[in-house]
């Protein structure tokens, strides 16, 4: 169950909103932040607070890239597979990253540290190829740069930024 603070925050956010469902994405982010990912319990609670059915909220939850309906690692890496990054050999970066971490896209490393996912254009095409880690932008990337980033993240100095 979400703690009382979170419940209050959500209820405040919805207060006076004519169509609560327009806040659905914000509510999902809040719940995801508390639970680590949008688990079934969070989804059902969220739907109830929003006056939606679980199906209606699930339609949105599964539409958006940055709502995680399954457990993710401490760091969620979204590699951009937009057109510009693709022209800048994004697939090499993707392959390198996966090889380094020993996972396939969509998987989480055994130590629970990293999840690798693709995403659509993140709007920083001038620094292609690019990726986001917990909402923080990195680019332009080279295989070497990717190794460095992973090292920093592993050493834990990297501050945890959460989307949004």
């Amino acid at each position: 169950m979400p703690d009382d603070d979170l419940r209050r925050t959500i209820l405040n956010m919805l207060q006076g909103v004519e169509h609560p469902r327009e806040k659905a994405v914000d509510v999902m982010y809040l719940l995801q932040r508390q639970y680590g990912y949008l688990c079934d319990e969070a989804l059902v609670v969220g739907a109830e607070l929003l006056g939606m059915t679980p199906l209606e909220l699930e339609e949105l939850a599964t539409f958006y890239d940055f709502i995680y309906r399954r457990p993710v690692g401490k760091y969620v890496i979204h590699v951009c597979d937009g057109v510009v990054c693709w022209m800048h050999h994004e697939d090499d970066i993707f392959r390198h990253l996966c090889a380094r971490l020993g996972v396939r896209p969509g998987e989480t490393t055994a130590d629970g540290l990293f999840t690798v996912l693709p995403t659509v254009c993140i709007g920083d095409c001038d620094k292609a190829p690019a990726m986001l880690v917990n909402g923080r932008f990195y680019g332009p990337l080279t295989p070497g740069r990717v190794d460095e980033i992973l090292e920093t993240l592993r050493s834990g100095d990297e501050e945890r930024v959460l989307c949004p």
Partner: protein
Amino acid sequence: MSRKPEEASCRLTIDGREIVVAADTPVIDAAERLGIMIPRFCYHPALGAVGACRMCAVKFLDGPVKGLQMSCMVGARDGMVVSTTNPEAVDFRRQVVEWLMANHPHDCPVCDEGGHCLLQDETISGGHALRRYRGPKRTYRDQDLGPFVAHEMNRCIHCYRCARFYQEVAGGRDYGVLSIARRTYFGRYEGGRLESPFAGNIIDLCPTGTLTDKPSRYRARRWDLERGPSVCLHCSLGCGLTVGARYREVMKLEARLNPEVNGHFICDRGRYGFGYESRPDRPRQPRVDGRETIAGAALAALAEGLKPFEAGKVAMVGGTRSNLETLAALLGLCRDQGWRPPVFFRDARLAGAAESAAAALSGDLVASLADVGRADVILVVCADPLAEAPMLALSLRRAARRGAAVLVLDHRPCDLPCEAERLTFAPQELAGCLSRLAHAALRGRKEAAAYLSSLPLPPDLLPETALALDTWGKRLAEARFPLVVCGTDQAEPTLPALAGGLARLLAGSHDQDRRAGFLPLLPGPNGLAAALAGGGDLEALLADIEDGRATALLVVESDLLSRTPEPERWLAALRKLKLLAVCDHLPSPLLEAAHVVLPSRTVFEAGGHFVNQEGRLQRAMPVFSPGLPMGRTLREGHPPRLFMSCAPGSEPRPAADWLKDLAGLLGAGGRAGDWADLAAAFPGLPGLAAGPAPENGRRCLPETAPGADAPSVAKTGSPDVPPDHLQVLLVERTFGTEELSCRAPLLAASAPEPWVDLAAADAGKAGLAHGAWLLVPLPGGPLRARLRVHQDMAPGLLLLPRDPRLLWQRLAGTGVLVELLRLHAITAEEEPAGEDTTLEAEP
């Protein structure tokens, strides 16, 4: 530049042929009118265009639009020149279908859609014959969507038809579109029965084998079926059906398009209400004194048995589920023999309400279901659409989505799949509330004076309620097309007349090109014809049988023992009869008591005509000949090894034929049984004289209703309910209560557990919680049921569904009151183990 009026027509050329259509008609429809069927998946006339599938591409060669475009998304304009065969368009469509097929599992041989599958058709017509894609296919996990809809997501082509129907048209909130891009999934949050009572329509709509009919799965291909147009008998709306039968058994029903009635859709009660025609306990053999015999002998015995009776002592009970031919034969028999007028309705109140609704109807006022969607202010009084006429709820939703305001005045917690204002009153207050509303609507109108002075006084109302009624009255008066819906199942006898009178006067307030509508709901598919025929009521007949004033009884297609709240009293009375003959196709305890049993055919075997609540004459075709379903005879290893010239179990005859032959034996034959005869039997339906109905039916009402402007209003006394007592009202539900469909095995097996309703105020006083198991002390013994508590329901009532799974017949009478504080919740240990709530007699 001035805007073109909406109805402006335009001329365009498609594949070298010209056609004139209303401007903005989708080009895909214009082509269809020329007989050119442009390939499509997402487009459906009832859902509109979204341009999701890209299958309908055509080339616009000239005119205001140029190039390759989706023909469902482009509205017709003057001067358009369209080619559907242009190589560029053909190639585009070939590619679309190829990519839609990329993930298809190629499992047509085991797919129930095979043979009537749009995806098969478009793949072939699109010229995609050889698979080029060799990669892995995307696969999905299917869900269990309940007893009616089978789910095979791998076959889905993402056309969105199902979700658009389910959410937009039907207002369902538990089925939709999940995920994104090539992972897009159509389903529920988790497996489980689809909640919408209209869910079955997604089977008809899905152009692939993703969503198919579960009960008929693997039982027949389309081309194996005997198919024919029919009419739904599970309420008075008369929605169009297509029956599919095989091996003397109905396999499935599908919606049949009737633009003025149901459109493209039907409700699940209509879709799954069949199966009573193949019940093992269906009477199939004529019987005399318990012994099986042949038709001629049974008829002769009945005719012989009837001869000694004084004409005035012979009574007939008919049903509103009989076809028009049967009702006419029954009326003719009573008239020619001088028997008592036939009885069609269970009690005087219902008979009165149905008659007053029928009297208020006329061609200039009556509204069809399609009209509901065109109205802008709708008053629903004493009607629970989802329970009494489910498709009306969809029409109300359509109206509400187009901006219509809907007000429901009722005592029940009427659920609706759309926005509507609810005002709840006790049933006996409804006429008074309507009166308040009518005064506000018709204030200052001279021609309304007689009507207004005939209205009862409004009850004491809270100021805000009075204000709400006044506001709605004004809204109705100002509406472009006001519509009044009135039920009869729960209404006081005068209420439909008052509602109809209001609609008539609202119509009078409008200019020539404006109109108002009246849409009554009647009991049963031929309730209007029965109401127009008049007659007595069952309660009065019962008293007459008890007193020996009626000593012979013929019951034709009316299930009176399982529909009466006084079964014991009826059974005792039936034992007093000197002669009881029953003609029916439903099994019932009545058959056991009968001296003569004449098995009749169901609508699927006999067909016949039905007149729905708007006076529309419609025809059901006989689809197959009666006989024991092969599915059953084969289960015993082999069809019976008997020498006979007909199929086993084929003795049932149309009820009308039994009655006509009986009339012949009684020496009053000579009725031709033709249209003149039908018209003579129902003077209230002059249109019958014009003969058989066209495909979509034909209205048969008189153009104006004589004397309808001044309804005669009898005073209706409110029952004396002592404080802290509840009036028990028998009500209908979407599933489980209607006479035919509650005998349908599919619905019986899957209808939600029956429940009783209580207003929150009463539940609070008695300390009862929503969902509790309740013990209700009824005169004939206690009744156990789940409780539902409602905020929006009139207090002082306990609503009990006429569901055979509940022991509601323990009411042992009408007008039963129970003491509020004697209702109590039962503890977990006392809770019934399930079958405890069902009638033992029900197989």
